């Protein structure tokens, strides 16, 4: 087994585009779930409207990709309003059901044959982000050091993606130390108490949903631009579950939790994937037990298992402080 190559791949995965995408998605979830206590299980819906916002604006409407970004952001705000209006007054578990349903509605709608002309149906849309690569200041060639060597195109995507992560993280940091963030946290702890102190809980929940949703659509942008394609089935509910694992792994209600969580998550997935693939290829695991195709399925099992184990044994995340969580049991 080529351990060197496997480790190298794992390290690259920790800083790769997927790590950045899921860091952003999980930062959005952190605003929702970690700080405000909103159970949003449709984060992938925000990613999808962001990604399709660009793709449809460019390929169907013929607009510039930069306008497409605005379309995507606008769409995610509209989605937040649509989701929030009926559900934010209701119990937390209703929000979970409605958001997961909404994400599914979005995916089914984008892949429907009747909208093929606009969204490309099940095959999606491609080649809409040329403008992004056109402004790449890096000249042709490879950049980086050690295992972290990427082509000039990849490097450009990664630099912009991680810069976005940094800017968003700083925003979250500032906001959560502000009185605004204090109100969100008070809603997480007890929304009736917040209401009794004159806070418009509904409106703050809406702001939180929209803000976290916008961050989710940024994740969609990065994914769409980095792969130059959107496909409806990329945006299945499993993506939201992945983002939850990332968030809980890194620790909820911590600014850097989602970022660290995402890097570790993708490193671990890359490791298990590559080790299993190599083991199957080299016959360490008999083909009767696992085929190459099935390695991909193991990933989902591990994520499911990880979610269970984290919540049962370490709901504070791998770096969190157990005592803080115990305060939750009132």
């Amino acid at each position: 087994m080529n351990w060197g190559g496997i480790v190298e791949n794992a390290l690259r995965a920790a800083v790769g585009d997927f790590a950045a995408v899921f860091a952003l998605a999980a930062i959005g979830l952190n605003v929702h779930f970690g700080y405000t206590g909103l159970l949003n299980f449709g984060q992938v819906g925000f990613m999808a409207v962001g990604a399709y916002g660009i793709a449809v604006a460019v390929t169907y409407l013929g607009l510039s990709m930069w306008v497409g970004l605005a379309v995507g952001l606008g769409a995610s705000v509209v989605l937040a309003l649509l989701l929030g209006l009926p559900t934010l007054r209701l119990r937390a578990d209703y929000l979970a059901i409605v958001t997961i349903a909404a994400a599914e509605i979005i995916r089914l709608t984008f892949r429907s044959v009747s909208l093929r002309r606009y969204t490309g149906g099940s095959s999606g849309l491609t080649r809409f982000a040329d403008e992004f690569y056109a402004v790449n200041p890096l000249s042709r060639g490879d950049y980086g050091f050690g295992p972290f060597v990427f082509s000039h195109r990849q490097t450009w995507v990664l630099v912009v993606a991680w810069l976005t992560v940094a800017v968003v993280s700083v925003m979250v940091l500032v906001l959560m130390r502000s009185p605004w963030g204090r109100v969100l946290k008070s809603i997480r702890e007890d929304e009736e108490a917040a209401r009794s102190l004159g806070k418009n809980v509904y409106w703050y929940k809406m702001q939180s949903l929209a803000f976290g949703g916008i961050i989710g659509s940024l994740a969609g942008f990065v994914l769409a631009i980095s792969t130059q394609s959107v496909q409806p089935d990329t945006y299945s509910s499993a993506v939201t579950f992945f983002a939850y694992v990332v968030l809980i792994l890194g620790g909820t209600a911590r600014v850097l939790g989602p970022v660290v969580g995402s890097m570790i998550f993708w490193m671990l997935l890359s490791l298990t994937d590559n080790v299993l693939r190599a083991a199957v290829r080299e016959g360490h695991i008999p083909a009767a037990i696992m085929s190459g195709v099935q390695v991909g399925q193991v990933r989902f099992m591990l994520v499911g298992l990880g979610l269970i184990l984290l919540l049962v044994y370490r709901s504070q995340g791998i770096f969190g402080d157990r005592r803080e969580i115990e305060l939750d049991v009132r």
Partner: protein
Amino acid sequence: MHLRILAVLATALFLSMVPGVPAAAQESGGGEESVRGTITDGDGEPVEGVDIIVETLDGEEVGVATTGPDGSYELELPGPGEYRATIDQETLDELELELRNPDRATLEFPVRPGQSRPLLFPLGESTRSISGTFVRALQLLVEGVKFGLIIAMCAVGLSLIFGTTGLVNFAHGELVTFGALAAWIANVLLGLHFVPATVVGVLAGGLAGAALDKGLWRPLRRRGTGLIALLVISIGLGLLVRYIFLYQFGGRTRPYAQYVAQRAISLGPITIAPKDIVSILVSLAVLAAVGIALQRTQAGKAMRAVADNPDLASSSGIDVERVILLVWAFGGGLAALGGTLLGLTEQVSWQMGYQLLLLMFAGVILGGLGTAYGALVGSFVVGVFLQTSTLVISPELKNVGALLILILILLVRPQGILGQAERVG
């Protein structure tokens, strides 16, 4: 406690490693593979301009074939493996044509190396234009009744589990799949007839429900794990189990050994396969029995009492934990039966239950979360609505319609049809 949860998880993982149904090889080989066919209308005349969309089972599109003037089409495939072909309803609509069997708009099929796979999309006379909207509505209504009853059966457990424990069980769909799969194994691999195989499936579902409660949920309740954490755990569990199914069973949909293709019989203006009539009758009988059991039997009364108010039930001497265990077993068995009946008409697949989950939620919320009868009524309405909505919207969007209705209900009457407003404070 920790040990018990670990043991459950270890068992799950172990099961996933046992060699299962051999998945069809998807590795690429030589040769030139393709799909082909000819589309003709009910009179045998070739039809031009119909699109057939071909994709892999993962949903990756391979290409679109369009029929020529002679009605024929052909599309080259990237290699052997499993594919899915869908006839584009929209192009058919434009030509005012319709499939003889609307359930067969999408075909899934394996392609061997070098094979040129023929596909059949038999067209019939368009019932829409000839037999009129009324008959079509009636036909859809019957299908809706069948589907609604199945959802109802699956959802009773979901609602009762919520009522008794407060858990929103996102892994309930997997109980549905589990029952259908267990019945499939008994039926196809062990050679049992479908009817006893169904009994096996139901028993397996009930056992699985009970085992989940005893091995996982009860210990977690004892620890005082919060409801939100439990909800997320159920999502993780659902994901884990779902992919164990995929791992073991493969991505194909598979039929039971009996009653695969039945000639539909005419009942007045509508046509219906005998197995669908049986499915409706069995569902009705079971649901009626459930209703009576909840109303009359000791266990049923206890379940409703606990769902209504766990504290009060407990203080009046009911063994709440026992009732909860019973609810899980009962809900698991019903979900399994629903899964088997669903598999009878739509075949068995690894994510059939998950695809039903949101519809169950829609039904349960419509009826009022936590109430048993509400779940029955709500699910029934959702099923009927789902099918009849295809009168006006494209069938591929019917789920979208149902989920939108779910959101609208929450907007207008969050406590559901049969639920009561909650008291504040």
